[in-house]
C-alpha cells in the first residue's frame, strides 16, 4: 500500500504527526502485565525441542565490536555453519550480523551455506552522521554483498517531532538497498527503543518505519542500557499484526540485545505465537539479535537430548 | 582447651562491612572497663561514602511496594530473633544489665520491628486523605518518604534505642545513615549483620560507629541529606541551626521515647512529605 493511502493524505510532517498521534495509546501497566503473564507459559519436552531449534534458526548471530577482525568474523561464521560439532542435525542461525566492512569476510567464510549476512549501517549505533554518509555506508555494505541491512533511525529527529525526516531517511536507505541486478537487501529498521523510552513512542516509531518501507522493525542496537524487552517486543508484534490486517503487508520483528538465555528465547516465541500468531513463527518474520544466546540454547538443546546439565566448557566459545 | 574466634566489628556501608577509610579504631569497654573490642572509628569520609550509598539506594527502596517493605522488615525481626543470645551477651557485657533485662530489651527490639513492619502499607490509609475540595476536582494527599535521613542513635541504649531510630526512618522508604552510640556500639554493629541477611537492599541502612561529636557536623551539614534525627547528639541546637541551611527536617532529642516495643506514628510521619494531587473531573 502507498504511504499516502495509509495516512489518508499527502505525506507531510503534519499529516504524519496527526496519523501517528491518532494511534491508540498504550497502557504501560497493562502491557507489562500481559508480557509477564505470557512469560509464565511452561514450555516442555517436544515443544521445548522445537522452540530451541527455531530459536537457533531465527538467530542473527552478532558481533559488533570495535575490536572485530576478519579472523573473528570467520570463526563466528564457522560456528554458524556447524553450531554443534557432535550433532549434524543442529540447525544454523539465520544470519551473521556484522559491521559493513566485515561483510566480504563473512560472505567468503559462509560460502554456499544458506546463512545470510546482515550489516549494520547508517552510522550505527548512534546514527549521528550526514545523510550522505549514511547512504554511502549502506551502499558499501550492499555492494559488498550484504543480504540484509540493519539501519538505525534518527532518534533525535523522532523525539523532536520531525517525523518526516525519519520517514524520508528510511525511504532513502530502502532505495539504497536496491541492487541493479538481483534481490535487494532486506531492510531492518532499528528503533532504539531504549532511547525512545515510552511505549507510545515505540508504537509510533514502529508504524512510521513500516510506513516508510521497513521489512523488519528491530528494537535495539544492543549498545544502550535498555535493549530488547518482552513488553517492547510484544508491542511491536501487535504493530505488525495490526499493520497486516490494515494493509496486507507482512513485516518482521527483531528483538536485539539482552536476550541471553534459552529460557528468554522461548518466552519470546510464546509472545510471537500468542500475539502475532503462528504465521510469524519463521525466520522470515522473526529474528533474535544476539551474541551469547546461541551457546545457552546449544547447552539446553544438549541437555534435552542427554538429560544431563552441561557446563559452559562443553560448547565452543566463539 | 580451645581459643575463641573473636569477631572484628566493622562499619556497615552499602551492604558491605568496611573498616573506617581513616584506618582508625577505638576501644569499646565492658561495664567494668575491661577490653571488649576494637571498633572502627568512622571519619567524615565514611560519612560521605555512607550518604552516597544511602542516596543511591533510596529510589529503589521507596519504589518497592509497601507490602514488600513490610515483608523485609518482618524478616529482620525473624533474623534478630534467631540471634537473640548474641545480642543478650553483648548487652550484658557492655551495660551490666542482668540477663533478664537484656532479654527483655532484645524482645522489645524484635517486637518494634514487627510493629513497624505492619505500618508500611497502612500509613496512607491512616494519615493520607481524600480532600473534598469545592470544585470539580479529584484531590488526594499521600505521604512520601523525605529521602536520606541522617540519624544519631541514643547514647544510652545498646540495642532497642538504635532499632527505634532506624526503623521509623526506613519503614516509609527513606534510607538512613546512622551513627551508633559511641560506648554501646557493638549491638548496633551486629544489627548490620542482621540487616545484611534480611533481604534489605544494600545501602538502605548504613551504620557508622564513632564519635558523635566528630561526625555530627559533617552528617547534619551534608547537603544531600533531607532530614536529621538528633536524638544521640550533644549539641542539638547548633546542629539544628546548621540543618536549617538546607531546610532539613529535624527531630530534636527526646521527642520520642526509644526504649519501647513499639514506635510512634508521628515519628514516622516526621520523616515523610505530604503530596497533594489534583485532577479535573468531567466528561
Amino acid at each position: 500500500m502507498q504511504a499516502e493511502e495509509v495516512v489518508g493524505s499527502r505525506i507531510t510532517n503534519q499529516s504524519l504527526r496527526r496519523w501517528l498521534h491518532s494511534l491508540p495509546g498504550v497502557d504501560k501497566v497493562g502491557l507489562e502485565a500481559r508480557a509477564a503473564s505470557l512469560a509464565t507459559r511452561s514450555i516442555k519436552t517436544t515443544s521445548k525441542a522445537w522452540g530451541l531449534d527455531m530459536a537457533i534458526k531465527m538467530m542473527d548471530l552478532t558481533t559488533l565490536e570495535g575490536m572485530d577482525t576478519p579472523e573473528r568474523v570467520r570463526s563466528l561464521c564457522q560456528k554458524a555453519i556447524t553450531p554443534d560439532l557432535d550433532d549434524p542435525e543442529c540447525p544454523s542461525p539465520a544470519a551473521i550480523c556484522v559491521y559493513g566492512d566485515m561483510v566480504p569476510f563473512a560472505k567468503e567464510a559462509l560460502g554456499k551455506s544458506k546463512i545470510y549476512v546482515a550489516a549494520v549501517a547508517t552510522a550505527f549505533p548512534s546514527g549521528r552522521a550526514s545523510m550522505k554518509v549514511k547512504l554511502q555506508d549502506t551502499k558499501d555494505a550492499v555492494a559488498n554483498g550484504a543480504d540484509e541491512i540493519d539501519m538505525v533511525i534518527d532518534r533525535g529527529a523522532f523525539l523532536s517531532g520531525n517525523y518526516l525526516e525519519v520517514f524520508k531517511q528510511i525511504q532513502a536507505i530502502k532505495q539504497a538497498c536496491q541492487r541493479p541486478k538481483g534481490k535487494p537487501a532486506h531492510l531492518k529498521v532499528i528503533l532504539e527503543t531504549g532511547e525512545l523510552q515510552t511505549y507510545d513512542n515505540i508504537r509510533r516509531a514502529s508504524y512510521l518505519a513500516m510506513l516508510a518501507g521497513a521489512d523488519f522493525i528491530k528494537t535495539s542496537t544492543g549498545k544502550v542500557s535498555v535493549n530488547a524487552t518482552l513488553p517492547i517486543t510484544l508491542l511491536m508484534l501487535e504493530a505488525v499484526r495490526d499493520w497486516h490486517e490494515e494493509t496486507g503487508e507482512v513485516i518482521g520483528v527483531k528483538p536485539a540485545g539482552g536476550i541471553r538465555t534459552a529460557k528468554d528465547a522461548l518466552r519470546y516465541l510464546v509472545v510471537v505465537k500468542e500475539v502475532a500468531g503462528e504465521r510469524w513463527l519463521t525466520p522470515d518474520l522473526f529474528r533474535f539479535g544476539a551474541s551469547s544466546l546461541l551457546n545457552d540454547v546449544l547447552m539446553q538443546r544438549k541437555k534435552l537430548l542427554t538429560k544431563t546439565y552441561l557446563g559452559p566448557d562443553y560448547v565452543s566459545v566463539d | 582447651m580451645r581459643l575463641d574466634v573473636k569477631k572484628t566489628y566493622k562499619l556497615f556501608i552499602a551492604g558491605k562491612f568496611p573498616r573506617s577509610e581513616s584506618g582508625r579504631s577505638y576501644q569499646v569497654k565492658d561495664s567494668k572497663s575491661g577490653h571488649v573490642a576494637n571498633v572502627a572509628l568512622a571519619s567524615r569520609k565514611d560519612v560521605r561514602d555512607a550518604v552516597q550509598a544511602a542516596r543511591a539506594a533510596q529510589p529503589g527502596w521507596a519504589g518497592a511496594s509497601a507490602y514488600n517493605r513490610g515483608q523485609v522488615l518482618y524478616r529482620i525481626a525473624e533474623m534478630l530473633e534467631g540471634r537473640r543470645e548474641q545480642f543478650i551477651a553483648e548487652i550484658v557485657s557492655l551495660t551490666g544489665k542482668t540477663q533478664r533485662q537484656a532479654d527483655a530489651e532484645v524482645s522489645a527490639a524484635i517486637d518494634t520491628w514487627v510493629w513497624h513492619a505492619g505500618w508500611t502499607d497502612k500509613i496512607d490509609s491512616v494519615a493520607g486523605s481524600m480532600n473534598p475540595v469545592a470544585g470539580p476536582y479529584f484531590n488526594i494527599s499521600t505521604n512520601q518518604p523525605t529521602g536520606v535521613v541522617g540519624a544519631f542513635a541514643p547514647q544510652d541504649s545498646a540495642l532497642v534505642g538504635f532499632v527505634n531510630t532506624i526503623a521509623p526512618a526506613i519503614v516509609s522508604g527513606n534510607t538512613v545513615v546512622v551513627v551508633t552510640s559511641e560506648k554501646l556500639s557493638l549491638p548496633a554493629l551486629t544489627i548490620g549483620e542482621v540487616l545484611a541477611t534480611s533481604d534489605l537492599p544494600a545501602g538502605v541502612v548504613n551504620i557508622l560507629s564513632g564519635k558523635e561529636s566528630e561526625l555530627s557536623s559533617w552528617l547534619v551539614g551534608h547537603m544531600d541529606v533531607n532530614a536529621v534525627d538528633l536524638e544521640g547528639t550533644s549539641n542539638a541546637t547548633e546542629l539544628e541551626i546548621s540543618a536549617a541551611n538546607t531546610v532539613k527536617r529535624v527531630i530534636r532529642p527526646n521527642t520520642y521515647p526509644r526504649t519501647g516495643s513499639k514506635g510512634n506514628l508521628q515519628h514516622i510521619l516526621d520523616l515523610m512529605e505530604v503530596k497533594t494531587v489534583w485532577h479535573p473531573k468531567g466528561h
Partner: protein
Amino acid sequence: MFDYAPAPEAKLASFEKSYGHFIGGKFTKPANLYPTINPATEDVLAQISHGSAKDVDLAVKSARAAYEKVWSKLSGAERGKYLFRIARIMQERARELAVAETLNNGKPIKETRDFDVPTAVSWFFYYAGWADKLDHAGLGPNPQALGVAAQVVPWNFPLMMLSWKIAPALAAGNTVVLKPSETTPLTALLFAEICQQAELPDGVVNIVTGFGDTGAALVGHKDVNKVAFTGSTEVGKIIAKQVAGSEKKVTLELGGKAANIVFDDAPIDQAVEGVVNGIFFNQGHVCCAGSRLLIQESIHDEFIKKLKRRMNTLRLGDPMDKNTDVGAINSADQLAKIKKLVKKGVSEGGQLWQPECKIPRNGFWFAPAIVDNVSPANTVAREEIFGPVLSVITFRTPAEAVTKANNTEYGLSAGIWTEKGSKMLKLADQLNAGVIWSNTFNQFDPTSPFGGFKESGYGREGGRQGLLSYLKAGK
C-alpha cells in the same frame, strides 16, 4: 508447530480419606459423610462431614470459650504475631495449597499459584500488622472486638475468601467459626492444619463443613456476634432476614453484574486484555466479574474482532496444566445454570460466539462465550450468570454509558477504559458500584476495601474499612 506440550504441575497435595470438623483445635471424628470431587475429572478427593446444628453449636461454644479465656486477653501485638506466623506457614506451603485448590475447585493452577494463594497470604500479612494498631482504625481509642464471628464463604475463591474473613476477624480480636462451601472444603481443612502448626490457641479458629443447612445453623446461632457472608444475593437476603432484630453485626458480599465500559479513546490492546481478564478469569466465577461489556458504538466491530482473536488463544483444559487459562466449571449444578441462562439470552436475540475448544470428556466445562447484540432487557444483561459469558451492549455517550451501567439491581464493581483522566474520574463518581477499576480489572489488594452498593451487599472487606466490620467503638 509450537503447540505447548503438557506441562502438568506435580500433585503436591494429598488428602485424608475423610475429614471431620475442626473444633477447639482438633479434628472431630468424621461423620455424616459426603464426597468432595475434582470438577475437572469428577474423581472423589475425600469424604467430608456434613455438619449438623449440634456440630455448629460445639464450634460456637469452642469459639466463645477461646474468645473469653484466651484471645480477648492477648495483646494486639501477640495476636498479630500469630497472624504473621500463619502467613509465613501459608507461604511455606503455598504450592501445596495451590494444588489442593486447583484439584478441588477446577480453576487453573496458574491462577491458584499466582493469584489465589499469594493474595490469601497477603491478607494475613496485612491484617497481622493491624492487630496492634487498632487505635488507628478510625473508631477512636481502644476499640473492642465483637466476640464470635460466624463466617460463610463460597466456592469460587475458597482459600482467599477464608483469608478475607479470618484475617481481619482475628486481628480485631474476634474468634471465628467458618463454614466453607460444600463443594470446596479442602483448603479450609488444610488451613486448619496450618493453625495447628502456628500453635494458634485452640478454638480461635473453628471450621465446620457442610451444606446450606449447616450455614443456616451457624448464622442463626444465638451466641454469635457477627455474621459475614459471601455468596449469592438470594442467600444474602435470607441471612439478612434471619438476623433481623438481633444484635449481630452483618457483612454481606453478594452478586454482581459489572459493566466494563470501553471508550473509543481507550488503550485498545490493554482493554481487550482487561475485558478478557474481567470475564474469563476464574471461569467467570467472580462476583465482581465484568460480565457486561459496554462498548462505544463507534468501535464495536473493531473491538469485537480483536476480542474474538484474543479469545481464540485462550487455552481450556486440564486445570493442573501450567498453561491452562480456563479451567473447569465448579459443579454440575453451576454448569446447568450457565447453559440455561445462555440459552435464554440467545432466544431473546443475543448472538452467541465461542472459540473452538476441545472439551475434555469428564468434568464440567463451558467454553468462553460472547453474547453480542444484547439489549438491556435481555436476561444475560440482567442476571448474574457466574460463568465465562460476556454480554455485549453498545452506548454512544458517557451519559448513556453511566445510565446503562447503573441499570441493574447490583452494584459491586465497574470498569472504565479511557486514556482521558477527567472523564474517568467523573464516571467513577457517577457509577453506583463499590469498586471502580480504570484501565485495569479484577485487581485485589489487602489494603483496598472491597464490597458492593445496592443488592451486591454491604460492609467492606480489605483495608482499614475492612477492619471496621469486626470492631465496635471502645467505651
